[in-house]
């Protein structure tokens, strides 16, 4: 037992204390959080816009067809663009998207973190869009009609009546998407970004000791996910209360 502990302490010192290697992990973690945070914001923004366009299209295109105004053609075109976006993003691996973003589309940029934020944001937006759209379609159409019959216009009905109900049904899935995104950013090392995963891997390369740095990286991800899951559960309970 004493010998095992001695080995453990030596390994620990080698991987984290010597040369202040723990700082690599910390810096990597910060990069991971920055990428995830801003990609989430971009993803949520894209997701809401695309979901509103798509569900507006699905709900109204039949009635708009009769009047064939400029709005009809505009909605048709925008909806088509959204559909192409969803198909492409969901139909290709995120690593490939990241590589294309880094080496082709934004090849002139030297800021890897920024490229990753944009690539992950665009990727996440597609999944968030479908989550929101499912949520909007799941709200009973009678709610929509009740709002309209009071005199609210389409957008007001969405804001005051549909979206608060949608948010509640969508929250668990949305949280899951955030967790997926957090873990997905671990491929950022592919384009030379020193995120949490890459930092652990760098330590392994320097110390030739794989166990400790990699387990440490795994633990950090796990802890973030668990804390986040706990917070969402609190929020969900809060939301459920408002219905009784």
């Amino acid at each position: 037992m004493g010998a095992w502990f001695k080995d453990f302490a030596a390994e620990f010192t080698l991987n984290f204390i010597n040369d202040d290697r723990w700082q690599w992990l910390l810096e990597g973690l910060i990069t991971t959080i920055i990428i995830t945070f801003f990609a989430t914001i971009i993803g949520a923004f894209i997701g809401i816009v695309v979901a509103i366009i798509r569900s507006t299209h699905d709900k109204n295109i039949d009635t708009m067809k009769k009047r064939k105004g400029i709005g009809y053609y505009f909605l048709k075109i925008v909806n088509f663009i959204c559909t192409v976006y969803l198909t492409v993003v969901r139909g290709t691996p995120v690593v490939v998207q990241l590589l294309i973003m880094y080496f082709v589309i934004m090849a002139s940029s030297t800021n890897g973190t920024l490229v990753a934020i944009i690539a992950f944001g665009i990727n996440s937006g597609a999944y968030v869009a479908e989550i929101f759209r499912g949520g909007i379609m799941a709200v009973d159409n009678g709610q929509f009609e009740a709002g309209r019959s009071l005199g609210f216009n389409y957008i007001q009905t969405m804001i005051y009546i549909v979206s608060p109900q949608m948010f509640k049904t969508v929250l668990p899935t949305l949280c899951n998407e955030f967790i997926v995104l957090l873990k997905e950013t671990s491929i950022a090392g592919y384009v030379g970004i020193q995120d949490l995963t890459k930092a652990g891997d760098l330590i392994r390369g320097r110390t030739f000791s794989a166990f400790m740095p990699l387990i440490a990286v795994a633990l950090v991800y796990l802890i973030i996910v668990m804390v986040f899951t706990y917070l969402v559960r609190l929020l969900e309970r809060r939301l459920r209360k408002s219905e009784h």
Partner: protein
Amino acid sequence: MSTNEVIIHTENLEKNFGENHVLRGITTDIKKGEVVVIIGPSGCGKSTFLRCLNLLELPSNGKILFKDWDITSSSTNINFHRQKMGMVFQQFNLFPHMTVLKNMTLGPVKLLKMSKAEAEAKAMELLEVVGLADRANSYPSQLSGGQKQRVAIVRALAMNPEVMLFDEPTSALDPEMVGEVLEVMKNLAKSGMTMVVVTHEMGFAREVASRVVFIDEGVIAEDASPEEFFSNPKSPRLKEFLSKVI
């Protein structure tokens, strides 16, 4: 109770759902203060007709004039006119994420620009009338069906509508709760509100209606005062229908 002022005028109203010709030309007037009860076999188009009146369904053909405004014209802002047409649904459609009071004040505050205090005072007054003042801070899921429908009625009334549309308001209720909702509607009729009611409640039609309209296969098959309608039906289709339901 009714005067000669026409509130809603429909002219040759038609509605198709694809190949399905639901309304085949309905022309009628609804006058101020009138209670028009619409009955008919299921699938005859009576709910569709009602939902056309505030454009929840877009008519395929024909015209609807609301206080002389052609609301079917594409330049009309329907949201503005809908504020003046209250609607009550079969499934209540209360907003589940809001309290009763919030359900009732949302429209007046956001659309009529009433102050919150003013809207709440008005809402409480209306809740008092239907005997639900003590449920103001409840959520819809805590109410019985009859209570929900009474709230739905006063939610529509809170907007100060000029006409109230009822789409089978008692059809989703347990039998013992039908009475309390009909009672509210009767009192509303007595107060002079213009009402268009799609229902299967023949007793209500007989007692409260100023006119009963029978729709069959997308057209008005009979349109008469309740006495005339029930004791002396003219069309064979109505005779057959009444013999089945009464």
